[in-house]
């Protein structure tokens, strides 16, 4: 857990450094008062200082991290990554093939990755989750859903 927190603190430090750099580019102050970069700059400086402080605290073991250990379940993480990849691909496809086809591909993919083996259920869920849902929400309730470049 300590390693994890240290990694997080470093990540935050990098993030704040980025914000410091970007807000420096925007004007901090001009004749009309604080510029657009003023608040983000000082906020990120404060953040960076705090991140260093946290790193120091962690080094000196002054942080109460509880008793839970940071454990990553190998197989579980593999599934999570697969799911994430599927989500990213489906999202990228949303505007290309439209909601219905995108979900028609995604839902069965998710179910299969997570271990469902009953093909009938997979297909039914796929159709219901894509065309069915689209019908209820877009046609009946007029909720905006991606139509794809082909308009459907």
């Amino acid at each position, binding site marked *: 857990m300590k390693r994890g927190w240290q990694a*997080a603190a470093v990540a*935050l430090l990098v993030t704040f450094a980025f914000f410091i750099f970007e807000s420096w580019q925007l004007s901090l102050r001009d004749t009309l008062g604080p510029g657009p970069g003023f608040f983000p700059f000082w906020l990120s400086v404060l953040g960076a200082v705090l991140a260093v402080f*946290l790193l120091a605290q962690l080094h000196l073991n002054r942080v109460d991290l509880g008793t839970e250990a940071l454990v*990553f*379940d190998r197989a579980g993480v593999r599934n999570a990554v697969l799911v994430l990849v599927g989500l990213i691909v489906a999202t990228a496809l949303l505007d290309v093939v439209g909601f219905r086809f995108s979900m028609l591909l995604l839902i069965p993919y998710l179910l299969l990755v*997570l271990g469902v083996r009953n093909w009938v259920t997979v297909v039914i869920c796929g159709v219901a*989750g894509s065309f069915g849902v689209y019908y209820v*929400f877009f046609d009946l309730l007029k909720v*905006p859903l991606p139509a794809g470049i082909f308009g459907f």
Partner: protein
Amino acid sequence: MEGLQLLLSGFAAALSLQNLLFAFAGCVLGTLIGVLPGLGPAAGTAILIPLTFHLDATGAIIMLAAIYYGAMYGGTITSVLINVPGEAASVVTCLDGYQMALQGRAGTALGIAAIGSFVGGIFAAVALAIVALPLARFALAFGPPEFFSLMFVGLCLVTGLAGQSLAAALLMTILGLLLSLVGIDPVRGAPRFTFGVPELYDGLGFVPVVMGLFGVAEILLIIETPFRRMGDIKIKGLWPSRDEWKRSSGAIGRGTVIGFLLGLIPGVGAVIPTFMAYIIEKRLSKHPERFGNGAIEGVASPETANNAYANGAMVPLLVLGVPSSPTIAILMGAFIINGLTPGPFLFQERPDLVWTVIASFFTGNVILLILNLPLVGVWAKLLKMPYQYLCAGTLLFCIMGAYSLKGTVFDVGVMLVFGVVGYFLRKLNMPLAPAVLALVLGPFMEKSLRTSLEMSAGDFSIFLTRPISATLMVFAALIIAVSAFQIAALKSIRTAESK
């Protein structure tokens, strides 16, 4: 008292079959809309406005208002069941509501939420009927400097969400503030941290970020260790224990007051009252460590607050004609489309209409309770679904919800990114709530700060020279002082113990 008489005749009209039907339809539609994550009351109400074109003015408004507070409850359902905030104001409910669900107490959580919402709504409606006018005038005294000070107080209260490490909480707060600054600078119009991506010009979007941090992250966690998280959920009894009733009643009482008062101030929005109520409840509690682990008052408090807020926010709308939030602005649009101008003259010109609408808040809240309480057991059973279907279904709804916000795939992408971020933060047990609160408060604070400075031509003392603002600032200083004192005291106790 004339007001009472008008209220009674309002009731007579509100209880007409037609108006009851409208209220009922609104509650049902609203709950359905609220259940769809991301599609908040704003979008839902806007979408359904054309439906109301064919109704008479009173009926239309009754229905739209019912949709609004119905959606508040719908958002709760998904927050409790799958840790996905159905809409912005339901975020806080996720903190304890979902934990309760994991302990098999989803039914209880939903039940207390329904009851709290009911009580909050009714009391707020009563207050609305009685003290609307003088309170509205008071709320007008809140200009940009007062607003900023109020938000600042809210931010100082974040120390109450600290948990194990104050430094971590502060870091999360600053991260949230910085993320909230992404977008076009409200004063100069210069894009900040946007890399030329126009979808970022309006900021990251609170709802996609929160849906990612809470909903998607949770799904990823479940996928990683399905049996540890979802394996053993036995649905326990629905009824809260005696002790829980006692704690909840206090939370409900405080939530009502906080929600209603904040509803009077135009521009506050529905999220902030839920946070304030939750944090205050945690600070006043004798066992603050329970919060975040399934404390029933952690659900009762924000739920009551957001319904009390919904009715409280009607005060500026009806009395002054000022909408408190984008959703209420849509309601106001509905008034206007139907040829009515909300404002003090509406009270004089069409008192029958106004009092009927107010009376329907009562009937609407009752209907909501009757609708939802019996279904609570049904919703809770949903969790017994095999986790694969739950995950796939949740992700499907999250994608739909995120897309439907602005009709752009970008928001879905934001949600996924923050899903990953949230996954790691949760694995590390880092506090998410301070970041979320900061994300909400950030834009308000910057805007009101700069507007205040425009008003004072750059003079910072404006915050201390105006009475209400000065009081709030003193209050904020007190909170910081008390927190610092508590931390120092705790530290010295710990060092004393370890010796």
